[in-house]
């Protein structure tokens, strides 16, 4: 983890997950793409796995966030309680402002 003063989003910010299925390695599963979530934790910046996967240095490092979603926003007909959530780590290059 490197010092990170460049994180664009803050805890509590609403974000939208970018939509995209590149033919290369990526860590943002399709089930959260296009969905609205909220920044739960800002972890600092980490080398980007989309470069690391190909032996590159993954720089510039990407700020990483733990994003929380309402389960009822992710799945139509979600069977659990309305207060249930899902959290997942997402790199900043996959986040859009809303």
């Amino acid at each position, binding site marked *: 983890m490197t010092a990170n003063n460049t994180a664009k989003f803050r805890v509590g910010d609403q974000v939208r997950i970018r939509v995209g299925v590149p033919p290369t390695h990526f860590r943002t599963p399709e089930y959260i793409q296009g969905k609205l979530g909220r920044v739960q934790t800002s972890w600092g910046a980490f080398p980007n796995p989309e470069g690391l996967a190909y032996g590159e240095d993954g720089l510039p490092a990407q700020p*990483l966030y733990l994003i929380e979603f309402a389960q009822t926003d992710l799945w139509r007909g979600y069977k659990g*309680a309305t207060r249930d959530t899902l959290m*997942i780590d997402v790199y900043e290059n996959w986040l859009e402002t809303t």
Partner: protein
Amino acid sequence: MAENGHSHGDNAKYYSLRAQAMQALLIEKGVCTLGDILTMADQIDARSPEDGAKILAHAWVDPEYKKRLLADAASAFLELGYDLPETSPKITVVENTDEVHSMAVCTLCSCFPRAIIGRPPAWYKGLAYRSKVVVDPRGVLKEFGTELDDAIQVRVIDSSADYRYLILPKRPAGTEGMTEEQLAKLITQESMIGVGLALSPEAVKAS
């Protein structure tokens, strides 16, 4: 959960050969040495759910330690003599409470806090668990024998990046006065993944 989504048994030979081929290539291309691979395997095999249970039981009896563990897991692990290897991803501890119950999964592969609790169980790596728990976590809990009231928020954590999540289960009722060693026996691998609760003292006595 018995079914794995795909049968490892039939493919064991194929996967073993593939792993050997990848290992040979990594060494040949100078990505790492055989020593590196063996060291990492040894580091993972040196840990088991008992190690995690020991740490988490300490958090149950020492509220100040629990605070440190939740704030900075790596330093708190070190206090008890658990030094995370440099190659280990970050680990963070998430507390289950009367209000929130968290469960961990890796939908992409099999990310797991190996440096503290060793290798994941087979079902954790299987497609059945990985695809169902995000959509129907309460259904998965039920399959593992736990039914939670709707008043408790169920929170799935999908570890897809640089952090691994270790769940600190809720301390069961009726455990006042138990020693740290006795408490550690209540903390199962399943409870540290969040697919179940810590065992009750009665359940341990019965087994």
